[in-house]
């Protein structure tokens, strides 16, 4: 079995540290701490686990400059067999169509049986790429997988559907799956593990390597403006010591009739 995972590098938003800055009309990302997108971690774990169980080969791909090698190395340290860095298509930025186009090139070149993507990207909030990729490849697509198994002939994918229900699908290869949180618990990667893959060569693939022609009739996505949403009128931050704040909360609750006595 061959499993390809698609990775994105995102700013580390841990502990609520500010990494967005309003610069004039623009909101800029001011972060020197980049990490693997949380959902992509589930995707890597699922791929490594499948290969450990059933044999085969796994590969991680990410689109971007040398900086994305960090997340590719993390995937290697987690146990992925190889990694490709895909050269970004000119001014692609966060255009899901362009990203899916590059990934399609990688898929048609490497020919995986299964592609796993994270359900969404934690920075842009987008979750379009896996669906577009499946469409372009004309492969079946299961979104928001919370369970993934291989029974020897086909994949068994459990995924979320509406109203909190889950559905279990049985689909043969090839297939695209997007990984939802809850799919697994990604394994810990020790520093030693990361260091051991530090010197691994990560090949870069450009459009020509992937036999890709430029996108035809593509409608460019234009980023008009980014801003912080204006604060609402109904939010209030309580002041004072914790004790005072608690009294105020109780006071408000009493006013709202939360307590009957």
């Amino acid at each position, binding site marked *: 079995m061959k499993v390809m995972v698609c990775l994105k590098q995102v700013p*580390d938003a*841990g*502990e609520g*540290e500010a990494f967005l800055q309003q610069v004039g009309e623009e909101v800029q990302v001011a972060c020197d*701490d980049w990490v693997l997108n949380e959902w992509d971690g589930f995707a890597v774990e699922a791929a490594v686990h499948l290969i450990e169980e059933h044999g085969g080969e796994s590969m991680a791909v990410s689109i971007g400059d040398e900086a994305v090698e960090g997340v590719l190395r993390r995937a290697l340290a987690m146990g992925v067999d190889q990694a490709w860095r895909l050269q970004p298509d000119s001014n692609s930025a966060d255009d899901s169509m362009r990203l899916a186009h590059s990934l399609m090139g990688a898929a048609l070149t490497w020919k995986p049986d299964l592609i796993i993507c994270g359900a969404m990207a934690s920075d842009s909030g987008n979750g379009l790429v896996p669906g577009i990729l499946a469409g372009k490849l004309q492969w079946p697509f299961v979104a928001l997988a919370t369970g993934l198994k291989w029974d020897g002939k086909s994949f068994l994918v459990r995924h979320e559907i509406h109203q909190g229900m889950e559905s279990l699908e049985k689909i043969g290869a090839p297939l695209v799956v997007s990984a939802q949180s809850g799919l697994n618990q990604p*394994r*810990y990667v*020790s*520093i*030693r593990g990361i260091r051991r893959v530090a010197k691994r060569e990560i090949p870069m693939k450009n459009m020509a390597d992937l036999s890709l022609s430029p996108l035809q009739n593509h409608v460019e996505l234009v980023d008009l403006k980014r801003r912080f949403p204006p604060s609402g009128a109904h939010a209030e931050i309580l002041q004072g010591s914790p004790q005072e704040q608690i009294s105020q909360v109780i006071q408000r609750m009493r006013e709202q009739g939360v307590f009957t006595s």
Partner: protein
Amino acid sequence: MNHSPSAHPFLGLSGPWLQTILMVLAFGIFSWTLYRRLGLLRRGKRAKRLDRPLHRMAWTWVYGILQIRQFKYPVAGVLHMIIFFGFLLLLLRSCLLMLEAYFGGVSEVGAVYAWMKDAAALAVFLACLFALFRRVFLRPSRYSDRLLPEHHSGEALVILIWILAILGSDAMFEAAGQALLPAEEGASPVAAGLSGYLEGMGQATLLQVRLSSFWLHNVLVLGLLCYLPLGKHFHVLLALPNVFLANQEPKGKLREAAEAGQAFEDLEQVGVGKLFDLNWKDLLDFLTCTHCGRCTDQCPAYATGAPLSPRAFTLQGRKLAYKSQPIWKQTNGNPDFWESGFSRDGLWSCTTCGACEEACPVMIEYVDKFVDMRRFQMEIGEVPEELQKPLQSLERRGNPFGKARLRAHPFLNSEKVPLVSDAVAGESVGDLYFADSAALYEPRANQAAVAFLELAHLAEHPLGSAWSKEVDSGHDARRFGEEGLFQELRDRNQSWLTSLQPNSVVVTDPHGLNALKYDYSQDLPVLHAVELVELWLQEGRLQVSNHQESIQVSFHDPCYLGRRGGIFEPVRRLISSLPKVELVEMERNRSWSFCCGGGSLNLFREELGQQRMAQYRLAMALETGADLLLTACPYCLLNLEDAAKSSNLQSWLGVQDICEFVLSRVSPENTHEKEGVKA
């Protein structure tokens, strides 16, 4: 002598023949068993345990022969001493009785030895009877273990009865001899007394009694020898070697992940995953364990209901070792350690407090084994979920709280503690305060650190800080098995430490103390805050007010300050030098302290017991009736204070860092003087 077994055939065999057959049989079985059992050690990894032989001999004399650790449990301890020393005397007797089968009369070596032997026999006899009574009726709780399905008291009972039978048969042998030839000189007083009961028996019957008791005695003694390697009484043979070979490194020092000359990164395998990844001394520990349960009795994880019992771990390890190398069957492979029944939850429940090792009378080591097993788990990515985030925070931000450096509490940037990160290279920066993560990123720990720095300021002891370069000491990353992360943090700290060249490093966090002393390689004096505060009080550089309310305080010894760092008495001297302050000790104090739940990464781990360790500890402090519980570690402070809050006991028992307490007792004149000088 006429009535010696050497001269009378028994069961149709002459004495020498019968004895020879018994000995060949017994020594044959014993040697094979021993060969198989000790052969296990050859399957373990290498370990050097023969350095400093003279020191080791002295150590063995104190802990092995004099067994000073026995007295921490006085009843069992005294019983053990009586049986041990009694047996040493009786061993000579048993050897003589073996020879008696060849050379008649050799066992009669005079009145002095006869008296001594009788006294020993009587003492051992009574001790065994009491031990039996204790096992059967008093049943001390430490003899049962909720993590061990099988109860081990049966084996203890068998041995006690066995010993009684040996003593009894010997006495009977002598008594019958006395009855046959009453006028012998140098007779044993017990035998003389017992022989009275045998009066009236015919000579032939007496001889049969004498012979059968003699052979029963020899069979029992040789049988005991064969039985020793099969059960917990293997310790009779192994305790002294195990004590001699015990770890002689400082208590806070961990076993290295890679052998000398080997780079950690190039290791084929890290840590211990399978049974024989352990070293030979680890395996010897398993074989030596006496099941006494002192380790588990002291273990804070066990006490609070977590799935960890050091004794169960050792016995499960032993069982697995015996299973993989049976005495009479072919040797099996190298089993996964989990096959022993020891659980991952158990492994992660250890806070590395070291109470178990402090209690073990035969010096069995636990923390090194656990850490080595964790190293393996880290390597294969099997890490409890709740630890992953703080570990990644350590990797990315250099502290387990995940705070960015700009979130560090800026107290160190004040006039009082100048930032020395920009010191000129080659020029000494004086004494350096190493804050470590808690003081920098945790508000409550920060308050305690500020109190210490305030004291330093009052005592006019200049301290610098390089907090802007500091990362976590890596102490607990290492103890949780993340060796690579530890090494990275250590290297980052060591690089600025080397360039700043401080005279000494001062810490408020005992984990930092331990890391800098034993985990880091630079040779720097490292002091804990309490040592300095004690000095300042002694030298009068800090004036304490007499006009304060009287108060009773208790002190919780942090594991890495006390048990690991050996700093017990400076704290006591410090407290006793404060007027109107009375120290009331908890029953478990100094090296018997009870872990608060652990520092750093332990803070993020959910304890698996029914109760948190800190709550357990707080209950002990409440028993003293003290008004205030003091400690000297930021994490102890956090854990204990949280416990007081969550059990609503704050009004009964306050929790404070010792520096905060001293600061609250410093006389106003002291403060004013200093302010005046400054103005």
